[in-house]
């Protein structure tokens, strides 16, 4: 049977991530859904359709290929190499592709930020765009985050569609006044007269020994601001799709990228597609436990999933994508099936996305839970420089494995 039977549906799912109900065979449905499977463990379960216990002993599990590196590896499956449609690129290129397509489509779309123009962006997301679209459409700003973010708000109010790049999400703390007061609020305080279709994007999260200030996990800081939407991309496919969706949205959107994910490689469709800003992504269907995650932690979860699956567990993995608002439908359907939840996030424990998500789940799905919601967050410490300490700050795959064992027995 081989791996060629694994669903790698490039042509489908173009209007939104991860709906696998269209796949015909049960075997296909049990495989990982397409967009993430190039890096995930591709395990084919016994195809007898009689699922029974999801924790069948290892001998009956036909684990075929164990991909050792969960992050940024070239796809090894024959079917993928054989597939000619689509094109491979890295996540930062996917972001750039989405941005370029939207700039071509609508002349009001413009980018502003530090070093986005001539330098091409610190993470090369805007490389080549200033040469193509001109210095005014890809504006190199002086180092004045609060003011140029406010400038983007004013430009949006009067008809443009600006994208603000924070060289690092942490720098946008300087723009907090404008983000909270103006981006979030002006549509409301003006009684609906002015729209603020800005996109605020930049890399955040813990990198490789970048020091505390460049390694901030700021999702929770912006979470409470009314009037903002917040999404986090985690693969080239959803990076491009979310970038396009965020630009097209009439709402102000914060697009959280991650420093360590920019070189992730994936094959994405040639045809145009846009992801949905409010919908979560079902990465791997399962029956034992619901794992909710986002951004870099998705890849740690997938790495942990390899060993979990080998041990006979069947986790359902959901990348929540939308950090604000939560897609309670996808999340709820999963909880109704598995009755156990583990949240794995890079945010701090206190007041983090996980804390919010836990509250939401308890409010809505209390009756479906068989166990307390577990949440693995990063430590409430400023990210240390030393490598060993930094590693201990964020959630690592062995912790995830341990947590699932604890949760599921």
């Amino acid at each position, binding site marked *: 049977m081989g791996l060629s039977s694994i669903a790698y549906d490039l042509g489908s799912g173009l209007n939104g991530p991860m709906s696998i109900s269209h796949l015909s065979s049960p075997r296909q449905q049990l495989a990982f859904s397409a967009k993430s499977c190039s890096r995930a463990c591709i395990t084919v379960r016994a195809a007898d359709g009689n699922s029974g216990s999801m924790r069948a002993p290892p001998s009956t599990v036909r684990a075929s290929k164990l991909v050792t590196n969960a992050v940024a590896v070239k796809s090894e499956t024959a079917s993928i190499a054989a597939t000619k449609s689509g094109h491979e690129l890295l996540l930062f290129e996917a972001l750039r592709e989405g941005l370029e397509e939207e700039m071509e489509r609508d002349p009001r779309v413009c980018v502003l930020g530090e070093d986005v123009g001539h330098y091409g962006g610190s993470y090369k997301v805007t490389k080549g765009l200033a040469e193509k679209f001109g210095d005014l459409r890809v504006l190199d700003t*002086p180092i004045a985050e609060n*003011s140029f973010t*406010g400038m983007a708000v004013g430009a949006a109010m009067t008809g443009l569609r600006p994208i603000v790049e924070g060289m690092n999400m942490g720098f946008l703390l300087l723009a907090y*006044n404008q983000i909270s007061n103006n981006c979030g609020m002006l549509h409301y*305080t003006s*009684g*609906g007269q002015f729209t603020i279709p800005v996109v605020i994007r930049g890399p955040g999260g813990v990198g490789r020994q970048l020091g505390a200030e460049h390694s901030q996990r700021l999702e929770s800081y912006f979470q409470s601001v009314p009037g903002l*939407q917040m999404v986090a991309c985690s693969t080239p496919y959803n990076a491009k799709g979310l970038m396009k969706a965020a630009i097209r949205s*009439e*709402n102000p959107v914060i697009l959280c990228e991650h420093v360590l994910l920019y070189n992730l490689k994936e094959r994405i469709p040639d045809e145009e597609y846009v992801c949905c800003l409010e919908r979560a992504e079902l990465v791997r269907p399962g029956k034992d436990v619901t794992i909710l995650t986002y951004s870099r932690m998705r890849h740690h979860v997938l790495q942990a999933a390899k060993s979990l699956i080998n041990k006979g567990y069947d986790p359902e993995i959901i990348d929540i994508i939308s950090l604000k608002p939560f897609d309670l439908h996808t999340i709820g359907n999963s909880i109704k099936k598995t009755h156990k939840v583990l949240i794995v996030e890079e945010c701090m424990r206190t007041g983090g996305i996980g804390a919010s998500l836990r509250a939401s789940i308890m409010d809505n799905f209390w009756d479906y839970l068989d166990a307390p919601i577990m949440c693995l967050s990063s430590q409430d410490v400023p990210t240390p420089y030393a490598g060993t300490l930094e590693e201990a700050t964020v959630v690592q795959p062995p912790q995830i494995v341990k947590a699932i064992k604890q949760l599921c027995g």
Partner: protein
Amino acid sequence: MVLGRSFEDMCAQMYYRGKMFGFVHLYNGQEAVSTGFVKCLKPEDYVCSTYRDHVHALSKGVPARAVMSELFGKATGICRGQGGSMHMFSKEHGLLGGFAFIGEGIPVATGAAFKTKYEREVLKNDKADAVTVAFFGDGTCNNGQFFECLNMAALWKLPIIFVVENNLWAIGMSHYRATSVPEIWKKGPAFGMPGIHVDGMDVLKVREVALEAVARARRGDGPTLVECETYRFRGHSLADPDELRKPAEKAHYAARDPIIALKKYLLESGLVDETDLRSIDKKIDEIVEDAVEFADASPLPPRSQLLENVFADPKGFGIGPDGKYRCEDPAFTAGTAQV
């Protein structure tokens, strides 16, 4: 100017009668600046203000009824009652706010000016020449956003005029106690733009400077910084006991009341006579009375308005547990939905 003065006086009355609430900042004494500048503008031009924005709104053409309703918190207010005294916005009249934190409107104004430049140079619309006027006070001139925007506006030659309404006091903080170099107009040339100092109590002098600054911006020659020496006759807000300012200072500026000064000039030069002025006063009184009546009679915002304008695209409230977008829930339009 008379409209501004009568309107603000009426606001004070209404506030003490419990018709409007919160922080209300009145513009009495500074009318010459607003009239002087805003009356030079075209309807497509933009004005960006601060919390002391009632008169800027009136000058730009927002009907007195809409402003008064907004102050009363009624649904017929210019911002549907959702903004209040400090957040006057009008898309129709190009009023970009209304901001409570000082300095945060200046970048917004800079963005509107940027949009004019973008429209000309990227969208190739030769007729795009909207000018933006940003009003703010002396206290703001020590704030980072002020300097950051002076830099960017001069750097990109944006069509913006930075108008400082220097009334010497930031609540209880004297300008001289807060600023190392009190002459704000000197800071313009430091950033590469002209810095003008004008008597803000004289509407004709303000207008002269304004016409030149607006023409300069419209030509594409870039920004101007204008410092208007002015004074507020009332306290910072209606809650301010105003005990720190010396009576001598207040008397000095009261003698330079812009309205009285203009009246004197008009009468002395024979441009109008007493009856003309009295008929203007009468007309204004009618407008203000009508505004109060209209506001009084207007309905309060219904509960259904609570969630309506949070997002331009209400899908931003997300997908509920039942799989439908929350904004599709009937309770959403009723304003009682759980979001």
